[in-house]
């Protein structure tokens, strides 16, 4: 347990530590655009709920990037996200085979796809070793900055 990162108060004070946790969970709630969150550990049990008092009207937005990092963690799965806006290609050219398929083992540095921006073909490499769990974008579709492209199950 390491409340240091989330709390600015004395970490030896259990309530301050818990408050730090709650604060961090609130931030997570907002950042991840959740409506509700229930959390429990050895010394904290909490439910947060973003009721009608929240975020002005239309609290909304569907297709927002999950994270801005190129590889965003979620459990033991990781997401490879697009480093720029452009067009997603699974293969180096229309005739070629895709770089990867679901179930393929990939290694750090291996090319996973191409994102074309301004006629430039940018190869996107894996940042870790693992197995392709899911391909989230169809070939030829456009992607936003930060949009998840692949789900990779970590070894």
């Amino acid at each position, binding site marked *: 347990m390491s409340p240091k990162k989330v709390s600015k108060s004395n970490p030896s004070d259990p309530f301050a530590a818990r408050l730090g946790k709650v604060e961090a969970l609130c931030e997570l709630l907002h950042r991840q655009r959740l409506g509700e969150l229930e959390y429990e550990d050895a010394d904290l049990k909490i439910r947060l709920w973003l009721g009608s008092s*929240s*975020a*002005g*009207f*239309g609290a*909304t*937005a569907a297709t*927002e*990037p999950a994270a*801005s990092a190129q590889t965003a963690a979620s459990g033991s799965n990781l997401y490879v996200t697009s480093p*720029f*806006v*452009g*067009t997603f290609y699974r293969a180096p050219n229309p005739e070629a085979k895709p770089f990867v398929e679901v179930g393929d083992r990939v290694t750090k540095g291996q090319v996973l796809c191409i994102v074309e*921006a*301004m006629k*430039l073909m940018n190869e996107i490499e894996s940042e870790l070793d693992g197995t392709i769990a899911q391909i989230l974008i169809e070939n030829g579709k*456009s*992607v*936003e*900055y*930060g*949009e998840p492209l692949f789900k990779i199950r970590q070894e």
Partner: protein
Amino acid sequence: MFKKILIANRGEIALRIVRACREMSIRSVAVHSVVDADSLHVKFADEAICIGPAPAQESYLSTAAIISAAEVSGADAIHPGYGFLAENAAFAETCANCNIAFIGPPPALMRLLGDKISARLRMAESRVPILPGSGRLESATDAIARAERIGFPVMLKAAAGGGGRGMKIVNDAESLPASYELARAEALAGFGSGDLYAEKYLPSPRHIEVQMVADAYGQVVALSDRECSIQRRHQKILEEGPAAVLTDEARATLFSLCERACRDLGYQNVGTFEFLFDRGNFYFMEVNPRIQVEHTVTEMVTGLDLIREQILVAAGVPLSSPFARRPRPRGHAIEARIVAEDPETFAPSPGRISALHLPGGFGVRVDTHVYEGYAVPPDYDSLLAKLVVHAEDRPHAIARLRGALEEFVVEGIATNLALHRRIVRDADFCSGQLDTHFLERFAA
């Protein structure tokens, strides 16, 4: 006409352009950085694309990201708003190379007007009055010689300048070399060019500007004049129009010379001619080849939609009936820029807006991208909202602005609302005794 316009900007101006597109039945594409996902321009545009992380260099200033967003969304035109890439000739050229219309003047004109020295010379050729001044300064020694010919005090200015950076007032030859080096360094850091020129310094001028519009067929019209003397460090805080200080004759003369200069330049799209006004004389400062923050003042007094006209002109439509000749202004308009900044230190004040109430009713217009619960990101300029009032004359407009400022509530972050409330009760402001140093005296 364009089918889809990508708006390469954020904040209130992006929303303003979304609204114009919607009224013209043109699809709009908002682009935004990660931290701007909740901004109103993103919510109200037909499409939205996240183009990069918070730093503007990697999002709103990234030619690659924006052109790529235009290509994947199939936009056939880009509106640059103001700031960011709006005066970037290279960006406009890239648009042209990618077969995307850039909604602004031709790139060559942007380049010419972006160099203040060449702009000055071109204006002089069109018999627009300019201040006594120099061309490019070669050295501090050269600068002293030129300054002595002009007569101290002089202002050193960056050729690529804007917004007050690289500007130094010099009172005598002794202090010139130090100021020269400072201005050069600032200009180099700010604009990538250390080129300087000198101009006669006026101690207490007024800032008067003229809103121009021109189509691709040589039609040029001066739409209205505005006074923007209330500035802090060359940043406008409050703008109004028509300028109370101008007689009808002075206005007609000024409009005619701006129209002539535009014709000589082959100007297209909207643009603003900025002047210093001192003891009855105008002196050309610069042309802003883009829409300005305070275009709203002209919209209120003329009733004409400048953003729509900008789009029409860029699409090759000739100026038509209400724009084709000088409109008769109705009443008086004032714009107060409401910014998120500490009222004492003037430092930006980002954060979440915990409570918001916008004024409304007759003659009150608010352009804003924020709402209650919105978090103002620390990454961009601090403009929150433009409060624009319109009434039949200046005293009534001031009274209306006073009331609207009282109704305006922003909680959770610091704003300059209190400063505006003081300005509108100031005796000099109310009687129209303005110059560009108004706020300095006022704060003292």
